[in-house]
């Protein structure tokens, strides 16, 4: 019971000079259970806002957000979030960070330790359990962040440009690992990114968004391409070299470019600058 539904979702922000800024305009989107959906779009298109609403960290001005049939009322471990800047607790060790949600829930110690150990191994963190976040590289820290979300066995995983703060090489490695993880342990995933490559490689479906105001341009199913091309069996650099992949990339780029050059519509007249 983890499908995510955005029903006529609108988000307005009040402007200091009066009037409203329309960040997202009546978005309808349905993400099926265990579907991996990537949302791509330029800065300011509202993709992060959508994710935050699914996470319960933000709420729609109009419309509803439902997860597993229930309207979202606030944050919770069944909708775990992975942040771009990791957001690990600096005063806790890797082990304590991963186990944080379990501790909050009151999970018995033995059970928690076993779960932590499993996820440490899963995310390749063996040997670093007693390190502090500042002693780890960016990639390692993000692994801890993913482990701490995964250990909660969330129905939905919400990832906000999780690899945005990593260098290019680490990013590629993490993308491969995430695909492995997602296939092994499927969950409903919303993955926010502005990197089109990443979106095509990781997702079942790619939602392309435009801005001013935030809206969905098009939703593209990647599965036919992926299954047809046998991407699962290929290393990432080969996948990204296939004609199917490059054509899809161009197609999405064109969508983003065209929309961004269009005259903005649907703005509230009071919007400044």
């Amino acid at each position, binding site marked *: 019971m983890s499908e995510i539904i955005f029903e006529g979702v609108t988000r307005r922000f009040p402007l200091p000079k009066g009037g409203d800024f329309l960040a997202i305009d009546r978005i309808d989107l349905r993400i099926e259970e265990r579907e991996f959906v990537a949302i791509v779009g330029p800065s300011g298109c509202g993709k992060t806002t959508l994710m935050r609403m699914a*996470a319960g960290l933000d709420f729609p001005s109009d419309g509803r957000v439902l997860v597993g049939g229930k309207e979202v009322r606030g944050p*919770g471990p069944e909708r775990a979030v992975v942040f771009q800047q990791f957001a690990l607790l600096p*005063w806790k060790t890797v082990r304590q960070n991963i186990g*944080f949600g379990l501790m909050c829930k009151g999970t018995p110690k033995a059970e928690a330790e076993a779960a932590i150990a499993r996820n440490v191994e899963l995310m390749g963190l063996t040997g670093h359990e007693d390190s502090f976040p*500042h002693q780890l590289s960016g990639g390692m820290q993000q692994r801890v962040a993913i482990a701490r979300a995964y250990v909660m066995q969330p129905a939905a995983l919400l990832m906000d440009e999780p690899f945005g703060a990593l260098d290019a090489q680490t990013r590629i490695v993490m993308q491969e690992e995430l695909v492995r993880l997602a296939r092994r342990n499927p969950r409903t995933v919303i993955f926010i990114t502005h990197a089109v490559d990443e979106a095509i490689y990781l997702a079942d479906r790619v939602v392309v968004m435009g801005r001013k105001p935030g809206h969905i341009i098009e939703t593209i199913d990647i599965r036919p391409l992926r299954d047809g091309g046998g991407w699962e069996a290929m290393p990432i650099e080969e996948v990204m070299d296939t004609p199917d992949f490059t054509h899809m990339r161009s197609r999405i780029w064109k969508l983003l470019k065209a929309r961004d050059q269009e005259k903005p519509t649907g703005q509230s007249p009071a919007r400044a600058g």
Partner: protein
Amino acid sequence: MASRHNRNFLGPSGTKLGVGEFWGLTLAGFALFFGVWSGVAASGWLPSNLLPSPGVVWDTLVRLWNNPFAGHVYIDHLGASVRRFLMGWALAIGIGVPLGLLMGWYRLLDEIVSPLFDAIRFVAPLAWVPLAALWFGTGIGGPLLIIFVGSFAACVISAYRGARLVEARLVEAAQTLGASSRQVILHVLIPGALPSIIAGLRVSAGLGWQSLVGSELIVVGAGLGYLMVQGQGNLATNVVIAGMIGIGVVGFAIDVLLRAVEKAFNRRWGQA
């Protein structure tokens, strides 16, 4: 942010000094100070009952150490002052830190309390002495109030800053993992504010200790400030200066101690 690197002392043109050179310069500074003091005292420019020489002050210290003056030997006066200071300081921490944290976390509380706080905190500790005398006479409450007033603002401000510094994202992360409000406070907000609070301890201790003499104007019995006032009453400048030296040395010791605490804390906490 140079506190971690104060082993790398800089010479005049930015070159690094060795430890020996550092201590050499420090001693040279003190030697210069005592030299000038002795010189001025010896020159007779100020009468010797107004500016006794370092030698006389030293003799006085020794005498006060071994013989009671104003009812107690030196170490007892010092002890009384330190005890009062610790009590007043502890009170300031106990009330000021939680208040600062709450003000930092709850905007509403901040808006209610801040104007009041800002208005009152510029009333110097010394200005509270008459009120303290009226309220407490010569009881312990008087000095406690003064030292409390001296330390309080720094405790509140450092806790407030610490609370504000905690990244909202960390709170959100904790919430998405299912943390209750109590768990957020315990595991995110307090640890996040702790470095600022620890730094504030040193500042508030210094300010509280500096309020000491003012606090002891309304005290009878014992205390360094009390000793100095008695000395003043007897026109014994040497006693006054001996008291000041005690205040300076203890204040310095408190600062050094808290610096070490801060350093050890930062090391263990490991934050960048």
